[in-house]
């Protein structure tokens, strides 16, 4: 593998064939020669460029690199497959937000912040989507499970790392009137 052109063809084919993201390390193992990470990165960067302006893009996310469709093309894709994507309730999204921003947290922590009991179904929904997992247990009576977000949560949300999550609103700014929360969300 001396030719970056060949390298790009192979990487493109492999990435297009795999639904799961592929990490740089996995890519290196594809080849007998010991390819430098720099060369791989250069090939990936060039591929990214080559795909610009198309309906599909090569992106880097938490678990590695993957080809994915651009959101503008989603309406065509949904016509092909009219399966309704689950719409998560506020309860689910608030629980997810607390786990994402405060991890690791116990169910009790989440209940403390939300001020209501957390339905088991909510946790199960997030676990089944493979967005959260138990990463340990807090060393207090009952040894409650500690939840954290997974790599596939980041990947599914098109993020490389937790610090790419939308920034939290500054608590100081919340002491002023906040148009965000004044609106009652009546979508049921």
């Amino acid at each position, binding site marked *: 593998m001396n030719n970056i052109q060949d390298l790009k063809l192979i990487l493109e084919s492999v990435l297009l064939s795999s639904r799961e993201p592929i990490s740089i390390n996995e890519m290196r193992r594809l080849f007998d020669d010991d390819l430098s990470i720099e060369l791989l990165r250069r090939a990936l960067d060039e591929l990214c460029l080559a795909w610009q302006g198309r309906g599909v893009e090569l992106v880097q996310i938490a678990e590695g690199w993957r080809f994915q*469709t651009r959101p503008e093309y989603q309406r065509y894709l949904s016509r092909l497959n009219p399966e309704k994507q689950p719409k998560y309730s506020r309860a689910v999204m608030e629980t997810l937000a607390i786990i994402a921003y405060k991890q690791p947290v116990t169910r009790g922590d989440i209940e403390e*912040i939300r001020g209501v009991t957390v339905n088991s179904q909510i946790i199960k929904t997030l676990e089944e989507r493979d967005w959260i997992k138990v990463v340990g247990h807090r060393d207090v009576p009952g040894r409650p499970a500690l939840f954290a977000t997974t790599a596939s949560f980041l990947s599914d*949300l*098109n993020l490389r790392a937790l610090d790419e999550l939308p920034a*939290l609103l500054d608590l100081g700014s919340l002491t002023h009137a906040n148009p965000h929360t004044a609106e009652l969300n009546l979508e049921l």
Partner: protein
Amino acid sequence: MSATLATPRLALVKGEPFTQMPLDLYIPPDALAVYLSAFEGPLDLLLYLIRRHNLDVLDIPMAEITRQYMAYVDLMRSKQLELAAEYLLMAALLIEIKSRMLLPRHAHLDESDEQADPRAELVRRLLEYEQMKAAALELDEQPRRGRDYQAIAVWHEDAAKLLPHVESADLRIAWLGLLARAGTQQHHKVGHQALSVREAMSHLLEALQHGDYVEFTRLFDPAQGRSRLVVTFIAMLELVREQLIEIAQNAAFSPIYVRLMYVHE
């Protein structure tokens, strides 16, 4: 607007007389259930009241907010809506804070200043919740695989060979998902018994596949035990009811025959 809400004696808010209930506090009774379920709990309801009335979250008028909060809770109760315990707990907390604020402050308490305002902890919780609530909205807007974009995976030989693994527990999960989405519109009452009937129905249809008449008794295998025979019989009745098979007998006490309905029309 609402007689139940407007009390003749209204509070002083920050020294200002408060003469009229906020108009938007009135909720048409029919809409109430929908409206209340829009709140994610007492913190959410409190935040709504504070933000809606443009109150200063750092200087919450406890008397007023408690009264409004109680109005909601009373409404919920009068409509006999299931009231989560958390709502009552919050009501108790609000009343406690309100009464502590009425107590004269002792000079020596001033050294622990942050403890001095009984509302401090409530304010902290409200702000923390509000922060997470906003974060949840942001997260929801983040592009999401499946909803906003798809991962690419073109066909290749290995993909065709790899078959997904399924366990019976997966079917249970799939069924639960269906039930949850079907909500209250449909009732799926399927139990053990019904299941074996369904299985027997499939067996019968298979046995009748070639389309000819099959003698009634040949469709039963006594070796399988009595309950199996009963199930097979029920299955046969069910198939007749669904007009999938027909049963014929030429004369009394002559053999009974069964065949598929559709083959001969």
